[in-house]
């Protein structure tokens, strides 16, 4: 060690550091699991273990946006025709993609994984329910749903996040002006336009192999877009159970407007390697850009002289897509 030239000692240092921190953290997690198991043996219901602030900061310090852009650039490189089938077949096999539903089943048609990720489905593969007022805007798995209570939205059972942090301050100042602002008049009450109504939410998680376009969940008018640049942490159910306010940390695009019962919003939340969000009628939207200032957001209104209430969307209409990168 003493005789090794200085640069090899420096080269070894980062490896040592990574191994030491990784090993130490793994040991800490093992100890936590052992503690939970002991509590369970004693019949004490262990609350879901939520990450502490330093763990969230450690996770957020990982350059997920940079990695995501690099991943997106890598997957935008055009593959030679002979390589397309093996590469895409590996992805199909790994994530259980059902190619029979794809509008184009021939894998040679997709020049790279990014194009494959944006694949469309055969129209008859997803019939739109004509009877019920709210349909699923995408394929996926329901993480949580129900009424929003005390301005807190459930991300998974037992873990919540703040409605106001997630949507940001009110866009239409009239509604808050219209109502007498009193101490109990919370952010939530100002959203709901009729006292006889409640506020509901539904969280849908899209797995890597799922169809990644999304559609309008009901007949409504989109009047406003708010883009929050942010982290790109994983949003899989395990992480959603571990990091409170996860959806308030991540890059997301909030579309808000109204439907027949009042306020309506759809938010697309980006994730690790899927940092780019496209809204087909919003050409100005740029997500996962290299520079952004923490906690910032940018607004855009779709209300124009022609569309006084915003852009009309029919239930099931194409609305946007998630992209790699």
């Amino acid at each position: 060690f003493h005789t090794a030239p200085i640069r090899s000692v420096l080269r070894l240092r980062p490896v040592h550091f990574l191994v030491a921190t990784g090993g130490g953290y793994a040991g800490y997690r093992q100890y936590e699991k052992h503690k939970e198991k002991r509590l369970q043996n004693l019949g004490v219901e262990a609350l879901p273990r939520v990450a502490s602030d330093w763990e969230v900061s450690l996770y957020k310090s990982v350059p997920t946006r940079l990695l995501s852009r690099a991943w997106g650039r890598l997957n935008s490189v055009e593959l030679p025709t002979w390589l397309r089938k093996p590469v895409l077949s590996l992805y199909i096999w790994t994530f259980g993609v059902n190619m029979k539903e794809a509008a184009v089943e021939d894998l040679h048609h997709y020049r790279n994984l990014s194009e494959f990720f944006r694949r469309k489905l055969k129209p008859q593969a997803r019939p739109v329910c004509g009877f019920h007022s709210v349909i699923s805007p995408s394929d996926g798995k329901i993480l949580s749903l129900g009424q929003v209570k005390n301005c807190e939205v459930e991300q998974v059972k037992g873990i919540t996040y703040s409605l106001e942090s997630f949507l940001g301050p009110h866009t239409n100042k009239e509604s808050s002006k219209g109502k007498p602002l009193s101490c109990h008049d919370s952010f939530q009450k100002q959203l709901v336009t009729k006292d006889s109504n409640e506020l509901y939410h539904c969280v849908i998680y899209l797995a890597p192999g799922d169809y990644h376009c999304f559609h309008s969940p009901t007949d409504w008018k989109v009047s406003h877009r708010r883009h929050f640049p942010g982290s790109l942490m994983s949003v899989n159910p395990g992480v959603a159970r571990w990091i409170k306010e996860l959806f308030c940390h991540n890059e997301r695009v909030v579309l808000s407007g109204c439907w027949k019962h009042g306020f309506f919003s759809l938010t697309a939340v980006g994730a690790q390697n899927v940092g780019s969000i496209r809204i087909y009628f919003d050409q100005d939207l740029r997500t996962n850009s290299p520079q952004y200032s923490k906690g910032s957001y940018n607004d855009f209104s779709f209300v124009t002289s022609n569309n006084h209430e915003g852009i009309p969307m029919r239930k099931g209409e194409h609305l946007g897509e998630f992209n790699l990168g």
Partner: protein
Amino acid sequence: STIVLIFEAPKDFSFYVKPGQKIRFGEALGSL
């Protein structure tokens, strides 16, 4: 990725799906 719907509706709005359930685009989520 994740999609979050937040909307107002009358008190008798009910969901037809449950947490943990797989869902596909176009299927009913809920209604009055």
